[in-house]
């Protein structure tokens, strides 16, 4: 997944979707780990995004003060 096209919001939506699937229990065990993996990756991406945003903002603030 190209980083540029990563959308935090879309990622959150996808995570939400996966969570619903998992929580509803409808999910095939064969697909479970795939989905969990996906969700986990998305969460990590999101956290990464958050961290990078945070860093960016911090650097902006450092610049500002």
């Amino acid at each position, binding site marked *: 997944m190209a980083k540029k096209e990563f959308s935090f919001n879309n990622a959150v939506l996808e995570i939400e979707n996966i969570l619903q699937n998992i929580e509803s229990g409808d999910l095939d065990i064969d697909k479970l780990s795939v989905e*969990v993996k996906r969700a986990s990756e998305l969460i990590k991406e999101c956290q990464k995004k958050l961290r990078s945003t945070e860093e960016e903002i911090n650097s902006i603030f450092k610049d500002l003060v």
Partner: protein
Amino acid sequence: MTEKISLTELQLIIRDSLYLALPDAYWIMAEISELKENNAGHCYLELIEKHPEEKNVRARVKAIIWSKSYRFLKAFFENATGESLREGLKILVRTKVEYHKLYGLSLIISDIDPTFTIGEMAMKRQLVIKKLEQEGVLSMNKEIMFPAVPQRIAIISSKNAAGYSDFINQLKSNSFGYVFYTALIESSLQGIETELGIINALDRIALNSHLFDLVVIIRGGGSQSDLSWFDNYNIAYHVTQFPLPVITGIGHDKDVSVTDMVANRSLKTPTAVADFLIDSVNSAENHIIEISSEIISTSRIIFEKNKNRIEASAIKLFPLARIMMSHVKDKLSSEIIEVINIGKEFIIRAGLIPSNQKLRLASGAKSFSSGKEVALRRNGQRLITGTVNCLNVYDVMLKNLVNTLQLLNPENVLQRGFSITSINGRIIKNSDQIRKDDQIDTQLFEGTLRSRVIEKTGKGG
């Protein structure tokens, strides 16, 4: 007519008869109609009795005061009455009738009672005053305004009177150098002609009253003057009616005559009148001098006031202008301070906006990202629990399957002592499936039995 006697004899008989008949002395009341002193000092009088209402004389007699008595009586009388013995006076005298062969009957006066004359005079005077009063003219001349500058003077006097020359001398020699214009209108000022003389003089002056400031009536000095001539009604009346003020200087030590009373002013002597006139002019001049010095001082005050006013203004002008300048300056400097303060304050206030916004931006961004992070973490948690639940479900399912399988596993059934009977490999669950003598296999937990059906019992059988 048998006996012939001489005139002398007769006169002597009359004298003796009278002497015998009238031995006493009598106090008699009479009016002097004539009075003469001779060189020897004897006084010869004619006494009359007159009724006021009648024209004619009722009685008349000659009288004599011998010089021996006269010296004493004259002084005594004058002293007591302020009048000399003269025509027209009423007197009370002690007399003795005498008869002289040469001069005939005469009364010898040995004593005189001045109080009677005083009473008579006073009564007469009172009558005059009362009449004038009743006519309402008593103070008319007094009411005439006295001229401020009595310079033009009509004098009623007699040319030869000592009083007149005293008066003129006093006036002319005044130390102030005032000029007085005098006109003498001659009149007799004593005796019977007094009345007519003064009235005529007043009438003449009245014709030219515009030329004069006042009239002066003066009489020669000395205390001998007979004041009673001036108690005359007609003189007094004329004076009251006179258009100019009348001043009298007819001089008397004690009493004042009616003329004095009605005159505008009355002074004792001509000299006093002159002094009074000089004083009047002098006080008029002094009045002018006073006014002029008042004008001078008032002018100076006005002048000083105005000067002070201007000086005060001049003194005030520049300080005031400076005060105003400094007020304006103060105002301007407070404006300057205000501009600076307000400008700075504005910048400070404006400066607060971006710094607040900066703070809000920082906290907003932080809470924003931390919110997202919390949500992410929650999702992670949900992922874990969801997945664990999911796996548990499968685990339970598998365990159930194992249990079911174990229950169903024939091996387990056999082990517990049950056996499976089959025919030709098919498991027999119903006796109907086989017939008698069918060969059946029975599988036990260990080993297999083949048997033959001997008997068959039905369901419930």
